[in-house]
């Protein structure tokens, strides 16, 4: 297909060029330039220094914690998100709207407040602090706290992606499957899941991007213990505050790379979806 505009141009050439230039400058300044600057700063002191910075034990431990946190968060949100969407989209029950609002809550509150809530609940002076520490369980300033906070802030992504789609699709295909003799698992596995798979993966990609990059909530609960409770974004901040700019940008470039992988995955998905949802042909044949 040739890339030509379907509309006739009514604006003069100079005006069109002006708008295009404005858009290019805007995107370049605000989006492209920061990404480029991350990588130039990261390599300012040479490739060797870059390698040392990112292979530093503290950076590696931050990377490990970030990946573990993202993995646990996604697993948890996959289960919760699917269950909540299924419930909201396919059934009507008292409290349905309340549940819908609750799912949106993490989007509405500031991540810092989300973090503080967990400190209030599980911290040493918190509601459950004493009973937990007497059993030797530490949540705040430890990995569980980081994971809990991340689960909280990324909770809406998968559910929000699935609910509208599942509502639009309705429950008829599931009803048909059941009447054809399928049990609950077969219905889910063979009918529900294939119908929502792309939205599900899309939600996971978005939640993953947020889980790896989350700063505010994690910052409050982690306590910034180097080598133990630092995630990549927190480690970047520490390095930066210590005027260790090149190292900070080197670690930041790792995050940027993770983000790029996520973006490529998202683009590939969108392409797949477009291919699968090509408009139906032969609509008018009886």
């Amino acid at each position: 297909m040739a890339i030509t505009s379907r509309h006739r141009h009514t604006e003069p050439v100079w005006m069109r060029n002006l708008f295009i230039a404005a858009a290019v400058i805007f995107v370049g300044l605000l989006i492209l330039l920061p990404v480029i600057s991350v990588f130039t700063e990261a390599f300012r002191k040479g490739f060797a220094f870059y390698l040392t910075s990112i292979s530093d034990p503290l950076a590696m431990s931050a990377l490990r914690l970030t990946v573990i946190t993202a993995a646990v968060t996604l697993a948890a949100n996959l289960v919760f998100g699917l269950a909540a969407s299924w419930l909201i989209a396919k059934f009507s029950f008292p409290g349905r709207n309340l549940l819908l609002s609750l799912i949106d809550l993490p989007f509405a509150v500031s991540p810092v407040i989300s973090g503080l809530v967990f400190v209030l609940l599980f911290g040493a002076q918190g509601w459950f602090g004493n009973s937990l520490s007497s059993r030797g369980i530490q949540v705040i300033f430890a990995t569980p706290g980081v994971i809990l906070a991340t689960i909280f802030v990324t909770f809406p992504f998968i559910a929000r992606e699935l609910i509208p789609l599942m509502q639009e699709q309705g429950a008829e295909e599931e009803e048909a499957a059941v009447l054809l003799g399928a049990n609950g698992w077969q219905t889910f596995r063979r009918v529900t899941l294939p119908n929502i798979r792309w939205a599900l993966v899309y939600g996971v990609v978005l939640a993953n991007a947020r889980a790896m990059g989350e700063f505010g909530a994690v910052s409050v609960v982690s306590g910034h213990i180097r080598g133990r409770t630092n995630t990549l974004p927190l480690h970047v901040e520490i390095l930066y505050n210590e005027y260790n700019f090149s190292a900070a940008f080197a670690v930041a470039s790792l995050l940027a790379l993770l983000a790029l992988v996520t973006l490529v995955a998202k683009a590939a998905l969108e392409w797949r979806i477009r291919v699968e949802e090509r408009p139906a042909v032969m609509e008018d044949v009886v």
Partner: protein
Amino acid sequence: MAIDARHVSKSFANYVALRDVDLHVEQSELIALLGPSGSGKTTLLRIIAGLDTPDPNPQTSVVVDGQDILDRRGSERRVGFVFQHYALFRHMTVFENIAFGLRVRPRKLRPSEPELRRKVNELLDLIQLGRWSTHYPSQLSGGQRQRVALARALAIEPSVLLLDEPFGALDAKVRQELRRWLRTLHAKIAVTSVLVTHDQEEALEVADRIVIMNQGRIEQTGTPDEVFHNPASEFVVTFLGHVNLFHGRVEAGQPVLSPEANGHTTRVFVRPHELDIERYQSSGASVAASIHRIQSAGPIVRVELTSHQNESITVEMTHERYRDLTIKTGETVYVKVRDVRVFVASK
């Protein structure tokens, strides 16, 4: 296999869908549940299928082939169900859609792959869509989709076939074709079938017997001839097609279209084809009316009139009769009952 549902009631949060309904369907019969929307016909169908549960009542039972299936889950009832909007599995080909019910069977009951292919291909031949087996539902027309949905329901060799407004989403011409096709199919495979529809023409054309429902109750059950010619209630008369309402009277057992001298009236219902027009009043049984519209394009001629009591009247006649009468718009003529089989509301 025969269906026998007894004392079925169902209420939702803000309305009552079924009020103590009994339904009996004979073996191999094709029965139509006919009624306006909200009459409870779809709810009754979904309860038989197991998609809805009736209000708890120890007397309630749904017996298919001698067994009460009320406690069984939908997946264990072996009913074939056809949805108004097809509900085909959108990510499966036509072949896989039809094969679904066979593939989800427990391993011991599952047919071997060649056996399954043979069976699905047989059904594809039955619905005349063999060439389309590798297509997806989105690539088919509405009529084709509904045939696939039917084949999918038949694949599990259902004890009964339940059809929920199966032609409701199709355009008039396709609907006609599919109706006739369903009729011949039913003659061939003779599975006990319940068809839900709000289209009286469809019910009269397709069904062996019709169950007319209104506001959660059954108004009348009978063959198409019985319900059309001997309606049991005012609702049945008005629902089964256009009908004229006269505030008339009954004299010596004969309906008369004008009121008594003292003003007492009885409601008399007469279908348009049961009326006739004459130029001069031949007896006291006719009423004077003026013609305001004549519609002669079509197999019959439809004349719309307004009586001097200000009732609007529709009369249908053959083109031959219309030519003999030589009536014109604006003329005053006399309308009388041609047929004595009219419905008189009981007081």
